[in-house]
């Protein structure tokens, strides 16, 4: 762009153009990254399955047909039935709902609260010690064990799974948000803002927050992936999503009881879980390459 057009458009125009170029760059990086494309396709697929479960599922996931207990795959039931004669395919499709709801809620809540904690810890030195010691303490308890203990006390429900996993993942997010924010805080433009008399609130949310967003979003995508695994593990152990409601974890748990006679009860929900885990992890890797290329 030559000087003449620069003057013509003014500073606002230049800003807009720069922003557009950045967006295009990110988009180009996205489509060039095989991981990001494959990952987001898988996540999209799962989200669609979760959203359209009532349309896609061939049967009611809770309807029991006693005469068709543990029917092998094929025929009327594409993926077979469980020991209560419920259609496995429908249960897996509805199970995607639980995984997606838990994954997205935990990803989002850990992002929001982790960012709040991390930003304020980085900005106010006095808060830093208190908040970070709390995070240290929480992360000193092994995460699976903490999640199990929390579920034991709170009681089984999808909401409590989200609550427990958020408590487990917020400290890690806070740590990442804090360390990114500490770097941003030392930049000259933050000093300039402060000397202009900008309020702390404006500096934190208007100027530091947007600059740490990439790192936070990348971590949120990993939390999304990890909470899908942990939810499945908790439900598998019988302390996650309660029984009649299908979740991949509790389908697998029922499958374990009939593992020697009904392989499909393990293989299909297992494949669904593996696909989701791989997909969300690859999605996270792709996202990192696009948003936070220096992290790798």
């Amino acid at each position: 762009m030559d000087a003449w057009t620069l003057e013509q458009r003014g500073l606002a125009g230049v800003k807009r153009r720069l922003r557009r170029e950045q967006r295009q760059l990110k988009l180009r990086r996205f489509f060039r990254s095989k991981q990001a494309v494959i990952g987001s396709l898988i996540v999209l697929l799962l989200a669609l399955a979760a959203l359209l479960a009532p349309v896609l599922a061939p049967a009611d996931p809770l309807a029991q047909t006693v005469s068709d207990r543990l029917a092998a795959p094929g025929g009327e039931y594409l993926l077979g039935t469980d020991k209560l004669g419920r259609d496995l395919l429908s249960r897996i499709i509805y199970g995607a709902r639980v995984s997606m709801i838990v994954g997205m809620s935990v990803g989002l809540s850990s992002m929001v609260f982790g960012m709040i904690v991390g930003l304020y810890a980085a900005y106010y030195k006095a808060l830093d010690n208190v908040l970070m010691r709390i995070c240290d303490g929480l992360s000193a308890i092994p995460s699976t064990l903490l999640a199990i203990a929390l579920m034991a006390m709170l009681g089984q429900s999808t909401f409590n799974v989200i609550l427990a996993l958020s408590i487990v993942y917020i400290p890690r997010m806070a740590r990442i948000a804090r360390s990114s924010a500490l770097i941003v805080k030392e930049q000259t433009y933050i000093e300039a803002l402060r000397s202009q008399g900008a309020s702390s609130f404006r500096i934190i949310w208007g100027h530091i927050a947007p600059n740490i967003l990439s790192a936070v979003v990348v971590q949120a995508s990993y939390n999304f992936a990890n909470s899908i695994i942990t939810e499945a593990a908790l439900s598998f152990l019988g302390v996650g999503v309660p029984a009649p409601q299908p979740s991949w974890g509790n389908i697998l748990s029922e499958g374990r009881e009939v593992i020697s006679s009904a392989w499909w009860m393990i293989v299909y929900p297992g494949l669904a879980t593996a696909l989701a885990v791989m997909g969300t992890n690859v999605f996270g890797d792709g996202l990192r390459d696009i948003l936070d290329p220096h992290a790798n």
Partner: protein
Amino acid sequence: MLKYVIRRLLTLIPVLFIVSVVIFLLIHLVPGDPAAVMLGDQATPEQIAALRETLGLNEPLVLQYVHWVRDIFHGDLGTSLFMSGTMWEIIRSHMIPTVQQTLVAIAFATIVGVPLGMLAAVKRSRAADQVISAFSIIGVSMPSFLMGLGLVLLFSVKLGWLPSSGYKEIGAYGWGTHIRYLLLPGIALGFIEMGLIIRMTRSSMLEILGADYMRMAKAKGVSRFRMFARHAMKNALVGIVTVVGLAFISCLGGAAVTETIFNIPGIGKLTLNAVMRRDYEVVQAVVLVVSLLNVLCTLVLDLLYGLIDPRVRME
């Protein structure tokens, strides 16, 4: 070094304080009266009142915490509603199978992970490296319950080579049977750690292979084998020891899943049984002990680090 040790020990205080507060507060997360929930529908008001008294629930919260911590320092971790013996005995007897399983897991992860990681580094960017790297990605992202179920399906149900569940003590059954029963749970538990060890070994090996002293060794005319065994291995070991140490901690905390699949009476199974029976004091005690072990292991690792690498002490 002494200054480093003291500084490191001081950082433990706030961590232990927070851990204890969190675990103490767990029981207060129970909706309603914990004593009533623990005893179930059949309990009489007198029984509930008595349990409230033993749990100390009638005191103010801060006082409850102070008493709870005091009891812990006196070696009293609370009592189980269903199991006899002191809490220490209960935890110790359940800890043994978990530690044995963890040792098998670590052995598997190290024996498979370290050579594969080294091979990948030496054959960098070639087919072997790509296959191994893909394998390690699968390892890292495969949840242990899927791995465990898959192993049972393949090796027990389909091939019939290994037992699908159970735990056999060394004393009563001998080493052979003992290990045979721990093989599948150990592999399931150690698979993720194997993936991590491959990654770590590969990257630290690559760093070392590109280092100046390796070029120097090559220029001196040191043989390929000697270069590898004497110069590279020694330096790679520091990183590998750390990963193995961390793997040990995460296996201890994550054994609940494999113990459920393979029906091993370990610490994870103890926790889950306590959860099902609302034996909350057992849950608190187990979480406390495992967290303390975790903190202790991290401390030992950090001190080892300081010992091996003087730069760490200066930070």
